[in-house]
């Protein structure tokens, strides 16, 4: 097993804030599928002894892994790109059906501001309707408040609601 250390030097402020928020909220298990925006965050979590990191092959798996962890009594979150949300509907429904609270950190690709590229556009167009269709509460990360505080509050929310919650992260939030 690779040696794990807590190493956040060189990380963007946004990623450091997310890790701070996850720790403040006592999230111990983080499942993930990588993407350009969130790769550094995933690497930092994997190298941090505080967390149990599970790198998954698909996003629906990541949701189900996080559900299993939270059902076993450990706070969890999953992180992936919004393209993966489109293929994770059953995983989200599983978490809802079994009242498995989890924070979903989703990189929001395909917006007019960050990704005006045809192969990302469908992701930006479908993310919010997909979350609404699944009945998942969500919010866009705000630039008006430290991201760590938003993450910690979102974790508190999911445990009160016993449901998943999605925090949508733009490129600027993670740099």
């Amino acid at each position, binding site marked *: 097993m690779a040696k794990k250390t807590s190493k956040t030097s060189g990380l963007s402020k946004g990623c450091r804030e997310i890790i701070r928020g996850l720790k403040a909220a006592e999230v111990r298990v983080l499942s993930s599928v990588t993407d350009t925006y969130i790769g550094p965050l995933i690497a930092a979590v994997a190298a941090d002894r505080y967390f149990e990191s599970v790198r998954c092959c698909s996003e629906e798996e990541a949701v189900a*892994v996080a559900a299993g962890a939270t*059902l076993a009594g450990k706070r969890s979150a999953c992180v992936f790109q919004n393209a993966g949300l489109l293929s994770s509907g059953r995983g989200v429904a599983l978490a809802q059906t079994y009242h498995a609270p989890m924070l979903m950190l989703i990189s929001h690709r395909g917006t007019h501001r960050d990704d005006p590229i045809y192969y990302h556009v469908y992701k930006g167009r479908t993310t919010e309707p997909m979350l609404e269709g699944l009945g998942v509460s969500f919010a866009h990360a705000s630039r008006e408040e430290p991201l760590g505080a938003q993450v910690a509050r979102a974790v508190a929310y999911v445990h009160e609601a016993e449901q998943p919650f999605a925090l949508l992260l733009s490129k600027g939030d993670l740099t």
Partner: protein
Amino acid sequence: MTRLPMRQAYLERLVPKAEGRIICSYLGSSARMISKVRPHGPNFILNDFMGLNISVALGMAVARPDKSVIVLEGDGGLLMKLETLVTAGAKAPPNLLVVTFFNAWYITGGRQPLPAPEVNLEDFARAARFPQTATVDTLDGFDAALDRMLDSGRLGYINLRLKRETPEQVESLGVSPPHPLEMRTNFSRWIQENCK
């Protein structure tokens, strides 16, 4: 030709060895039978959501490294999400044992054959770098594989070849799995009482 055991016979061999261990079961016949053969243990039964059971169990195993987790998955479910073996094989929690039930048939989902009835599921587990795997077609073989893999400190995989139930046998089980909220409540209570 070997006369294949029935599912319930396999489960009855498993239950005594699963004392104090979490059992995650998939839907259908196994869900109903595990409720019957182990009504009071730490069972988590995932109804519907085919193919996601190994992922849920993996989450439980990493969250509770001091507890043994046995996950039961169907052949049809596994084939829907083969990548779950790869993720589990990569993470390799030493407290996780994956058991698949292979009858090459969707028993409670329309009674249809698998698209590839000759597929070898153990080959997938080996390819996913499970450190120990077995395919068994007898009850004694299952006992031996359980004795070898449980508490071995390594991730394990057992593929059980079994006889198909008839529709009448499935119907006669008559035990409905608990409602998700009831099961989640009971499971959470067991976790609180038995985990650090």
